[in-house]
């Protein structure tokens, strides 16, 4: 399979962009760690390493064989006289892939990094109470079943991508940078994990009021945002070239929109928190930055910079509202705000494609609207029950939550036998004004 106008130079350029993507994972791992407690910091980063390793191995073993690429073999179902491409039919262990810089091989590499990024998202929702072994097995389920299926539908020439060809719905479901298959799939898995694990001890009082449990390292969180920005530029750009057929020269626009999105969303989050609490809140501003990046993923290659700013402004406001809603009204303890940042902002990004993007529609704007809605309905109606069901089953056989003593000691001491900061002692007199 070759993409039109995809030369060796394009392949080399695309490869460089793909090499930036692990920085998004590094950023997310730092953010997850910083937003958790200090007594679980080493555990959080070690879990990130394990999750990335397992996601990559599962992707190579059978993930890519379910995921495939446009124009490659697949399993089809005929309904209403149209073919529905449900799942790819590639050999296991990448035996059908030539490592020659072709779009298929580049797609395989990008998706290996993408699935790792998606698998890191639930770690944030399970912080301070998710057992290391359980998070590893849960990653196998995400990387081996939920992610490849949905990624095939969107990026592998599956039925969602074909909605335009089969039913005249715009250009089909459009998601250049993985807002759906990476961010929303990861975010909905995070929601499933938060529900299954339940809140941390002491998070909610008997009358249901949440206690603030601040993250332990704002510097990790904010530096993680900067790393994620670079990674996201690679992700959005490479995704747009490989999966949305965007010309390599157009990545300039993708990078501009990605940066504008992150910046605008962070500024809006800072303004909102300043108005609400009197001072800008560093961690919520970081959440705003990430929400901007997530919202830019679907539409970054197809909107003008002014629209990117508007999308990000709304993403930040919606994300902050969702963070508060999940914590106060729905009693979902999500220490890193992963559900709001990745699932809610990702869904908004997918809607924004229909609102603002110029994707060269067949069937007009209404067709594109319908395609995006069908994609969102598939995320809510298929991915959420699937990830919840799989993790619920896992929890029946292998309890995912650490026991009470583990939560009291902290995950570092309980599961790893040593803390992340063994020489770090807080002296109460450091807080006395002199």
């Amino acid at each position, binding site marked *: 399979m070759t993409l039109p106008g995809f030369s060796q130079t394009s392949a080399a350029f695309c490869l460089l962009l793909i090499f930036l993507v692990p920085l998004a994972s590094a950023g997310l791992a730092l953010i997850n760690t910083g937003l958790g407690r200090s007594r679980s910091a080493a555990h959080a980063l070690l879990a990130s390493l394990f999750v990335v390793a397992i996601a990559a191995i599962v992707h190579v073993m059978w993930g890519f064989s379910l995921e495939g690429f446009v124009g490659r073999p697949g399993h089809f179902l005929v309904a209403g006289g149209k073919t529905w491409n449900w799942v790819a039919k590639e050999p296991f262990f990448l035996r059908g892939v030539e490592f020659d810089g072709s779009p298929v091989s580049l797609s395989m590499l990008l998706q290996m990094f993408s699935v790792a990024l998606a698998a890191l998202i639930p770690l944030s929702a399970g912080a301070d109470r998710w057992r290391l072994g359980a998070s590893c097995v849960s990653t196998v389920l995400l990387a081996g079943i939920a992610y490849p299926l949905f990624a095939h539908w969107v990026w592998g020439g599956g039925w969602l991508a074909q909605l335009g060809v089969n039913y005249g719905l715009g250009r089909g479901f459009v998601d250049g940078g993985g807002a759906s298959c990476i961010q929303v799939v990861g975010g909905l898995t995070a929601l499933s994990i938060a529900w299954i694990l339940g809140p941390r001890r002491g998070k909610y009082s008997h009358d249901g009021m949440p206690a603030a449990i601040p993250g332990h390292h704002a510097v990790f969180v904010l530096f993680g945002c900067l790393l994620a920005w670079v990674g996201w530029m690679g992700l959005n750009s490479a995704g747009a070239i490989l999966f949305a057929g965007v010309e390599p020269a157009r990545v300039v626009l993708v990078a501009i929109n990605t940066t504008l999105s992150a910046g605008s969303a962070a500024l809006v989050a800072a303004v909102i928190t300043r108005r609400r609490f009197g001072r800008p809140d560093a961690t919520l501003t970081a959440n705003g930055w990430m929400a901007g990046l997530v919202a830019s993923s679907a539409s970054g290659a197809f909107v003008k910079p002014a629209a990117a700013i508007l999308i990000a402004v709304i993403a930040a406001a919606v994300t902050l509202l969702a963070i508060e809603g999940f914590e106060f009204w729905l009693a979902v303890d999500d220490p890193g705000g992963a559900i709001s940042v990745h699932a809610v902002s990702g869904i908004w990004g997918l809607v924004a494609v229909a609102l603002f993007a110029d994707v060269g529609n067949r069937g007009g704007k209404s067709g594109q609207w319908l395609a995006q809605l069908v994609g969102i309905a598939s995320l*809510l109606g298929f991915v959420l*029950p699937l990830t919840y069901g799989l993790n619920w089953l896992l929890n029946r056989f292998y309890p995912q939550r650490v026991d009470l003593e583990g939560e009291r000691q902290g995950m570092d001491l309980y599961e790893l036998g040593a803390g992340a900061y063994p020489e770090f002692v807080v002296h109460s007199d450091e807080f006395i004004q002199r």
Partner: protein
Amino acid sequence: MKLAGFLLLLAGWVIVLSSLALLHSAPAQTAFVLAGIAVELLGLALVVRAHLVLGEARE
């Protein structure tokens, strides 16, 4: 309640898929896709409610 919620989520998705496969006019497809999403939102509300009740029981 939780199981009913997840079944409604799946049912909503099936309505969306069926509308694409069975209906041919754009207004009818749109109406059924929106109906499917409404069923999904109802299912989501049930699942959320079920977890709120579970949380209260844990207390």
